[in-house]
């Protein structure tokens, strides 16, 4: 991350930058090839064991069985992915926006922080699975409890990181703003906001994968559509290849979310966050 940033903005320095970028590119390609190779070996061994010992398909399907299920059930999988993606995305937005607003209030007002940080930690310690039934009773069978569970999962990591980020400002820069008689809001808009961005993105990368988990947990406790629902259905009818295919779809959602946040981060943070002049 840091690497690509520094190369992009050293653009003016020409050859050295280019060579560095090429080396990074080659390193990236090598990493990808090795990872794909490792995955291929695992799948091959898996396939070989399942076939060699004639493991029944309802117990452990071979990778090829899962592939077939992925293809045959593609419409069913896509139809059920839509509600889960919607719940996860809404939960992601809700949880993170709320977390950042709370973090801002903490940084503005120490008393608010002293009052409510412990409450936030308390909520965090309750297992999300234990909260889910409560939310179902309160909010019913619709999309709301799923969104809320996804939001809850996102909330805490972003809160902690944003609070830390808003404070991760060079103290001399704060002194400078004081000498300039800048208001609290100006310090926030000009300095703290940017200082917090790298921290916030680190949290967003965690919560974007967690919100998919939240949506699935929400569907488990009451839904008739969605990836979580499909997982349970496939389990009840012992359609193990479809179960695996559904898991792969859930995983792809998380990967896509992660890639999206990483891409946005590379657009937004164009400086090297490690720099402190």
């Amino acid at each position, binding site marked *: 991350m840091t690497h690509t940033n*520094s190369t992009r*903005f*050293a653009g*003016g*320095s020409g050859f050295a930058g280019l060579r560095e970028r090429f080396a990074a590119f080659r390193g990236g390609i090598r990493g990808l090839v090795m990872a794909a190779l490792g995955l291929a070996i695992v799948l091959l061994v898996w396939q070989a064991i399942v076939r060699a010992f004639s493991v029944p398909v309802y117990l452990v399907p071979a990778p090829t069985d899962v592939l077939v299920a992925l293809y045959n059930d593609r419409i069913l999988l896509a139809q059920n992915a839509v509600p889960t993606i919607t719940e996860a995305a809404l939960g992601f937005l809700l949880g993170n926006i709320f977390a950042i607003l709370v973090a801002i209030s903490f940084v503005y007002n120490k008393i608010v922080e002293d009052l409510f940080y412990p409450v936030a930690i308390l909520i965090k310690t309750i297992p999300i699975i234990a909260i889910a039934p409560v939310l179902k009773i309160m909010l019913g069978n619709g999309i709301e409890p799923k969104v809320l569970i996804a939001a809850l999962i996102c909330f805490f990591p972003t809160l902690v990181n944003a609070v830390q980020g808003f404070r991760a400002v*060079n103290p*001399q*820069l704060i*002194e*400078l*703003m*004081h*000498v*300039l*008689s*800048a*208001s609290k809001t*100006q310090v926030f808009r*000009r*300095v703290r906001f*940017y200082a917090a961005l790298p921290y916030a993105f680190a949290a967003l990368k965690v919560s974007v994968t967690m919100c998919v988990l939240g949506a699935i947990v929400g569907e488990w406790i009451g839904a008739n559509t969605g990836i979580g629902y499909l997982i349970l259905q496939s389990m009840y009818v012992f359609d193990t290849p479809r179960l695996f295919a559904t898991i792969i779809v859930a995983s792809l959602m998380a990967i896509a979310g992660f890639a999206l946040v990483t891409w946005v981060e590379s657009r937004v*943070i*164009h*400086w*090297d966050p490690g*720099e*402190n*002049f």
Partner: protein
Amino acid sequence: MPVAIDLSQVSVTFGTGDRSIEAISEVTLTVQEGEFVSLIGHSGCGKSTLLRVIADIIPPTTGHVEVLGVAPTDARRQRAVSMVFQQSVLMPWETVLANVRMPLEVGPQVRRSPDAMSPHDALRLVELDGFENAYPSQLSGGMRQRVSIARALVTRPRILLMDEPFGALDELVRDTLNVEILRIWKETGMTIVFVTHSLQEAVFLSQRVAVMSRRPSRIARTIHVDLPQDRQISVKDSSALGRHVSRLRAVLDEG
């Protein structure tokens, strides 16, 4: 000449009770407008604290401070005082131009005074025109410090406080910037208070050098530098400068 900075019996104590530390003790110092005064002393003797009292970052525990005839807070609000730190303290997410323009965009309404310099002029003054759209990470340490000086000048302050501004730079860059800051001082007619560890630098730049003692931290002595007004870098190697440095060293050793 009118008085720019008037400190009388200023003490600053950090903490309370047994744990309290007296950072500076009964410092009395008067700086005339347009003067270039350096503060030197052993590390931890309170030079930076003194500068922060003038800049209204730290309030004095006891004593009286006047900056341009008013309280430090009022001087700060009037944008009469600028500060340059040891680090350039630039915002890495902004371009050079945006960094220099920043003081004009924050703070009270006084900023819209017609006195303010254009950021381009400020950059020209530190000879960095052409680098407006660069980012700090693309500049060398010396260039970054020039940007931070331009940012300090853009409000046309009457007093410039510099806290070891060239302490982190190598000697060649430091020499160049020493000559530059003298040129800027002459062009603008500002009052400059300059904290440094380097006796040579202090003598080369200043009209007066105030030596701070170790404990209690007060001004042990003030020495006038009678070197020619027009100082080239070769003056750094002159025997006249060497004599001043030895005198300062003697005062430092006493304290």
